[in-house]
C-alpha cells in the first residue's frame, strides 16, 4: 500500500514512454520489502515521500524544494548540491535530500560490475534514485542526508576509484561524444582528451577559484552531437585540413540506389517514402559552398572551398571519409541565455593538432592563457563569453597570443570606430601644438 495517494502522478503511468512514476513506485516497493536486507542509512520510505512531495507540486503547481546552503565533502567546493524539502513534517524521508555529482566515464560506457557496485552503494547510503545522466554529463545521485556525504565519498574514492564531478564556480565535469570509440566521423580521440584534461585540472574542478562556472565539451566532428558549440565555454570540435577521401565505386553504389548503400546511413528508413536517392539534388545541391561536381560518373570536391559541414559525408558515409590531416578547432564563450542572451561559441583556434605525446601542450596553453585572463578580469558570475563581449575579441587574441585571421569573423566590422592603441600610430599621440601652430594659424 502506497504511503501517499498520488492521483495526479498516477496519470503519468499510462502511455508508451517509460514512466518515471512507475519506476519511483517500484523503487519505493523494493525498499519497503528490502529482500536484500540492506541496512538503509537514510529513511527507508524516502522514495514514498519523494512521490508524495511531487504529487503536492502537481497539485499546487509549485516546487517544494529549498536550496541547500553549504553542504559538501571536506576540501571540495563542488560536487554536492544541498537540497531540503519545505514540507518536512509531511515528508520526513526527504527532509534532507542532497545531490551528489559523480564524474561519469568518457563516452558513458560502463561495465555492469561497476554499475551494480554503484547501485549497491546508493541503495545503502542514499535514496536509490539517480539521473543517468545530468545535463552536464555527471552520474547524478539524487537524495541523501548530510551525514552520508563523506561516507559515500569515502567509498567512491577508496573502493571504486571514482571521484565526484563539479558544481559552483569551478570547472564543471567535462563531457564528450563517444568519438572514435564507435564513430567513423571522429577526427580525434575525444575520450582520451576529455580524460586527460579532467585529470590535469582536478584542482580547478574541485576547488572553486573561477568567477563563475566553466565548461569543456568535446565533439569529434562538426556534427556536434554533444552540443559543445552551444553549451561549453570552451568547445573542442574535430576537423581536418586536407581533402575528403572519395571512394568512387561506393559513390556509384549510392547513385545506383544499391540497398546496401542507403542515403544518410539509413536515417530515412521510416514510414515516409522519399523516392530514389538523387545525388545531384541531395548532395551537390545542398552543399553550402557548392564545391562538388559529378561528371562522367566521377565525384570531385574542390576541397579548398569545402567548409567541412559534414553533409555529404553524413549522406554517403560509405563513399566519403573525413581527411587524414586531423585535429580540432577551439571555440570559446558559448552559454545559455542568462544574462545578456545566449551565445554560441566563437572560433578562436581554427586548427590545432591533438597530440597526446606532448600532453596536448598546444591545447593546454590556450586553456591556461584564457583562464589567466578570465580569472584576472572576469567579474563575479561573468561567463567567459560575457567577458569577451565586454573587453572584446581583440583582447582575447592578445591574451592568447593568437594572430588575427579572417577565419575569426563571419564578416569584418561594419563600423569604422576602431580604437587604435597609441603604439599602433606612428609617432604616438603626444604632439607639440606650438609646432603645429607654426603652420596653422589660430
Amino acid at each position: 500500500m502506497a504511503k501517499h495517494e498520488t492521483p495526479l502522478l498516477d496519470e503519468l503511468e499510462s502511455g508508451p514512454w517509460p514512466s518515471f512514476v512507475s519506476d519511483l513506485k517500484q523503487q519505493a516497493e523494493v525498499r519497503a520489502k528490502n529482500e536484500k536486507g540492506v541496512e538503509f542509512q537514510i529513511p527507508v520510505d524516502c522514495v514514498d515521500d519523494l512521490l508524495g512531495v511531487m504529487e503536492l507540486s502537481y497539485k499546487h503547481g509549485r516546487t517544494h524544494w529549498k536550496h541547500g546552503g553549504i553542504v559538501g565533502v571536506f576540501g571540495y567546493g563542488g560536487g554536492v548540491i544541498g537540497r531540503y524539502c519545505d514540507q518536512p513534517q509531511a515528508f520526513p524521508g526527504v527532509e534532507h535530500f542532497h545531490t551528489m555529482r559523480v564524474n561519469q566515464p568518457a563516452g558513458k560506457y560502463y561495465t555492469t560490475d561497476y554499475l551494480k557496485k554503484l547501485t549497491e552503494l546508493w541503495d545503502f547510503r542514499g535514496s536509490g534514485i539517480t539521473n543517468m545522466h545530468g545535463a552536464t554529463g555527471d552520474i547524478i545521485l539524487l537524495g541523501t542526508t548530510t551525514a552520508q556525504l563523506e561516507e559515500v565519498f569515502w567509498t567512491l574514492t577508496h573502493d571504486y576509484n571514482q571521484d565526484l564531478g563539479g558544481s559552483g564556480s569551478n570547472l564543471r565535469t567535462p563531457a564528450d561524444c563517444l568519438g572514435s570509440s564507435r564513430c567513423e566521423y571522429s577526427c580525434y580521440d575525444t575520450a582520451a582528451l576529455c580524460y586527460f584534461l579532467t585529470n590535469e585540472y582536478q584542482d580547478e574542478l574541485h576547488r572553486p577559484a573561477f568567477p563563475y562556472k566553466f565548461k569543456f565539451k568535446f565533439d569529434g566532428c562538426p556534427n556536434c552531437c554533444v552540443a559543445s558549440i552551444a553549451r561549453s565555454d570552451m568547445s573542442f570540435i574535430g576537423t581536418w585540413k586536407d581533402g575528403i577521401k572519395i571512394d568512387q565505386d561506393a559513390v556509384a553504389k549510392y547513385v545506383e540506389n544499391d540497398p546496401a548503400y542507403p542515403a544518410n546511413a539509413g536515417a530515412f528508413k521510416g514510414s515516409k517514402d522519399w523516392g530514389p536517392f538523387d545525388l545531384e539534388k541531395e548532395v551537390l545541391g545542398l552543399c553550402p559552398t557548392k564545391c562538388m561536381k559529378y561528371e562522367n560518373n566521377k565525384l570531385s570536391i574542390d576541397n579548398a572551398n569545402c567548409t567541412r559541414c559534414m553533409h555529404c559525408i553524413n549522406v554517403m558515409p560509405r563513399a566519403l571519409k573525413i581527411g587524414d590531416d586531423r585535429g580540432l578547432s577551439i571555440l570559446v564563450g558559448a552559454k545559455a541565455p542568462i544574462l545578456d542572451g545566449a551565445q554560441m561559441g566563437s572560433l578562436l583556434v581554427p586548427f590545432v593538432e591533438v597530440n597526446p605525446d606532448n600532453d596536448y601542450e598546444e591545447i593546454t596553453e590556450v586553456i591556461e592563457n584564457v583562464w589567466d585572463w578570465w580569472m584576472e578580469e572576469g567579474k563575479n558570475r561573468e561567463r567567459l563569453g560575457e567577458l569577451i563581449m565586454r573587453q572584446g575579441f581583440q583582447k582575447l587574441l592578445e591574451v592568447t597570443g593568437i594572430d588575427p585571421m579572417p577565419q575569426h569573423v563571419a564578416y569584418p566590422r561594419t563600423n569604422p570606430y576602431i580604437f587604435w592603441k597609441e603604439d599602433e600610430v606612428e609617432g604616438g599621440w603626444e604632439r607639440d601644438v606650438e609646432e603645429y601652430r607654426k603652420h596653422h594659424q589660430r
Partner: protein
Amino acid sequence: MAFISTGYNPEKPMENRITDIGPRDHNEFYPPVIKNNKGKWSHHEILEPGVLVHVGESGDEVYTVRCGGARLMSTTHINEICEIADKHCDGYVRFTTRNNIEFMVDSKDKLEPLKNELASRKFDGGSYKFPIGGTGAGVTNIVHTQGWAHCHTPATDASGTVKATMDELFSDFQDMRLPAQLRVSMACCLNMCGAVHCSDIAILGYHRKPPMLDHEYLDKVCEIPLAVSACPTAAIKPAKQTLANGTEVKSVAVKNERCMYCGNCYTMCPSMPLADTEGDGIVLMAGGKVSNRISDPKFSKVVVAFLPNEMPRWPSMTDAINKMVEAYASGANKYERLGDWADRIGWEKFFEVCELDFTHHLIDDFRQQAYMSWRQSTQFKF
C-alpha cells in the same frame, strides 16, 4: 537504522583521505569489439529505427540497440539494465548524451533475442521500460532538467512534461519519417541547466512574478549582500522595512519591473520565493540546432510566449508541439532541420502553418540584440 561508518573519521578528515582522482578510465569500460576497433571504424548503418550497425575496417561489426529511458532512474531500473546487459552484452552497456541506453552485441544473431527481451519489458503501469528507437530522421529522447523532483527554482516539472511530450511523439521515436532529426529539449526555468537554447523544439519553464519578500525572516536567514549581488539585472537593493507590528528590520526591496524571474536571489536567500501557481508555466521555442551541417548552428526562437501549467499532462503544450511537428513533417524538404525550414518559408508562414498565434511578447525587446531580429527589408510574405 544504525549508522555504519566506512572508516571516515570526522575528527581527522584528512586521515587516509583520497582526493583528485578523477573519473574512471573509460578504457576499462569498453566492450572488446569497441576496444579492438576504436579509431578504425569504416562506416555505419541504421538498420531500422533504434538499431545500428557499425562496421570496422577489420570487418568486425557491432550492433547497437538504442532504447529510450527516463533520466530520473532508480537503482532497481539500473539493475534491470545490468541484468539484460549481462545476459546479452557480456556485461557492457552505455548511455548517450540524450539519456538513451545503448545495448551492444558483436554479431547479428544476438540482435533478435536482445530486441525481443527489451521490447517485452513493461512497467506495472503499462509503459515500456526499454522502447527501441531514437535514431535517424525521427525524434530522440528529450534532454531535461530536475523540475519538481529536485530543484528549488523550477517553473514547471521536467519529468512530467517530458513524459507527456514523449507519449505524444512516441510514434516518431520509433519511426524515421521526418525530414531530418528533431531534437526536443526541456529546461524548467530560464537558467536553462538543460541549455535548450539550440534545440529544434524547446520546452522551457518560466516564472512571471517577481519574488515575494519575507521581511521578518530575511535578515535572519540570508546574507543580504549575497542576495543583492545574485540579481543579474540589479533589481534588488538593501532596504529597511517596517513589519506590521511596527518593528523596523533590515531587508531588501525589489524593483519589480527589472526582474526577469530567474530565481537566482532565491538560491541565495530562501526568504525570496517566487514560485506561483498562476504565474508559472511554459514557453515554447523552436528552430535551433547545434550541428554545423549545411547551415550554421542557430538559436531557438520563442514561438509560444506562455502556456499555463496543466498538470499532469500539459495538453495545451503537447498540442502546440504536435502542430509544429506535423507542419514540419509535411512542409520541410529532405535533410532540412526545423529552423532551416522556418527560415526558408519565413517565420510569418511558420506561424500560419503551425496554427500558432503571434503576439507582441514574441518581438524581442531585450537589450541591443533585439534590433537584429526585426525585419530590415521589404521582403516578406502576406
